[in-house]
């Protein structure tokens, strides 16, 4: 069943307004707080087993992982309530901070980076492909214990008479530390590349709100397809790396340190399914897929702009020539 919310004043569709941070009616400017709604809910009639728009009745071809979207015919919000139940219900979400006009601006700037933007990207219509999406994430709090053993050296050298003396002190170093990590986030969508998504970090998790459906009015939200059990080891790998790096950095005062072995155990770990805001653009042009992603909270941009191999080539030649000439000159002087 698909639902959306109607304005009590004029009956139009209510959407979440990013700047106002309220449910808002674009027709009569009515606003209300975002909270679990009990009334004003429109439901679709889905006798034929397919999803229909509650506002205009048109069929909605929802992809498997869609929790919410927008009606292709009338533009009304579509929230598929049965897709956010039980373990599929997000616990929290971070609302958008950057709205469409800001996203458009960042996108156009990104397009131009390459200076050799294909004409396609100069069309106004290209902006229709830039959409606000709530992406599925797992966030985790954990307490870890790391034990590390290392060999360290302190070297001193000085000159006495006509001798050089090198004194080396050898140490055995041991550390046992507990560290707490919180809100370590990892994206739960198979189709979104993990490393690319990681470039969007950090999010500011103070802005986390308890999840309620009205936040999704007017936005696409995606369900996770990688569950807690699959993501947990990936998060552990990152956290393990962080912990061991921290413990290693606590070994100071030596000329050299060699880690002999280290082990990290997870004393506790929990995971929550959350939705994080993302301005997302994906476009296929001449056989190549262009991806632009902007952190919907912080505005950080990720993605390779439509750039020229021509420019890359020019840079290559330029640097090559300069380095080549310098190498020749240095070689001539040395030899």
């Amino acid at each position, binding site marked *: 069943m698909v639902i959306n919310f109607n304005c009590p004043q004029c009956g139009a569709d209510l959407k979440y307004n990013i700047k106002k941070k309220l449910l808002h009616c674009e027709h009569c400017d009515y606003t209300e707080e975002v909270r679990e709604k009990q009334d004003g809910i429109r439901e679709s009639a889905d006798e034929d087993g397919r999803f229909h728009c509650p506002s205009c009745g048109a069929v909605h071809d929802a992809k498997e992982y869609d929790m919410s979207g927008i009606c292709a015919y009338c533009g009304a919000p579509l929230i598929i309530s049965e897709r956010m139940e039980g373990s599929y219900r997000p616990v929290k979400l971070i609302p958008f901070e950057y709205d469409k006009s800001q996203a458009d601006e960042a996108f156009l700037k990104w397009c131009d980076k390459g200076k050799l933007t294909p004409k396609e990207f100069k069309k106004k219509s290209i902006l229709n492909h830039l959409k606000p999406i709530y992406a599925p994430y797992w966030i985790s709090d954990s307490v870890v214990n790391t034990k590390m053993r290392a060999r360290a050296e302190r070297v001193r050298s000085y000159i006495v008479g006509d001798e050089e003396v090198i004194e080396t002190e050898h140490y055995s170093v*041991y550390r046992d530390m507990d560290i707490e990590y919180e809100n370590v986030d990892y994206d739960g969508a198979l189709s979104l590349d993990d490393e690319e998504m990681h470039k969007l970090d950090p999010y500011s998790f103070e802005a986390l709100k308890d999840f309620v459906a009205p936040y999704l009015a007017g936005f696409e939200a995606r369900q996770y397809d990688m569950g807690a059990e699959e993501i947990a080891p990936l998060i552990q790998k990152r956290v393990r790396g962080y912990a061991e790096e921290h413990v290693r950095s606590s070994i100071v005062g030596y000329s050299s340190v060699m880690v002999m072995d280290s082990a990290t155990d997870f004393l506790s770990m929990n995971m929550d399914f959350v939705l994080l805001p993302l301005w997302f653009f994906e476009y296929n042009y001449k056989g190549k897929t262009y991806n632009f992603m902007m952190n919907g909270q912080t505005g950080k941009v990720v993605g390779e702009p439509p750039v020229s191999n021509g420019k890359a080539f020019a840079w290559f030649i330029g640097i090559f020539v300069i*380095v080549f000439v310098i190498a020749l000159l240095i070689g001539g002087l040395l030899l």
Partner: protein
Amino acid sequence: MIFGSFRKLLTGLYILMITVFSAAAVTAASEQRVYDDAGLFSDSESRELEERIQELKAEQGIDFVVVTTDNTYGSSTRDYADDFYDNGGFGTGSDNAGVLYLIDMDNRQIYLSTCGQEPIRYLNDDTIQWIVGGEALRHVSEGDYYRSALSAIEDTAYYYEENKNSYENGGGSISPSPKGADNGFDLSATELGISGGIGVAAAGGAVGVMKANRGGKVTVTGHDYMKKGAVRINDQRDMFINRTIVRHRIRRDDDGGGHGGGFSSTHHSSGGVTHGGGGHGF
């Protein structure tokens, strides 16, 4: 009587002609500079060498002699070379200045002998070693005797000129460098290749980094996710094990004679003439 005076005149003329021709012959004979006693050169090669030697004499005033032998009759290569030079009456000026290159097939040595103030000065020990150890040696080892002699002539001409300039312009000192050292802009294929390789690596690396960073970078570290103040040290031990000490004497750079040579060692030949020289086995 008329016939008597005419005869005298004719005899006189005849004697004059013979003297002139003999003198010419003698002079011509004393102009020979290639003595191929071991038969290592073809006729045309000998002629080429003679020509080159005459050119050298005209251009730089160096009197150069090329000798080959397959029997030194018990003499050392050095003595053979020196004696040949002295007995041949070669050289210019009051000190018989000149250079002799000997290919000794008996002792299997090539040798360069110098005589006279300027040759001895400008062809010092290091220089002579570069000559006899360079192309001349390479060719003689390959059995190319003609080219060996030619190299000896060319290299001698080269170094003589270099060192002479160095001496005259450098205020009396000679700091020779081996032929073939890069003088800034000699571009060998290796140099080009290496520079090219470095260029490609640098450019490739730079463009690679540019491409990689174009799409954004990961900017978070563990620190960003660590709960503030939530680090507890359960155990921390830095245990001293032992101390090792290494001592070594600092080398002082004052032994070894000055390098970059300028030194010409000399000796006396059996005839009491001062010669410089050096050789190399092959």
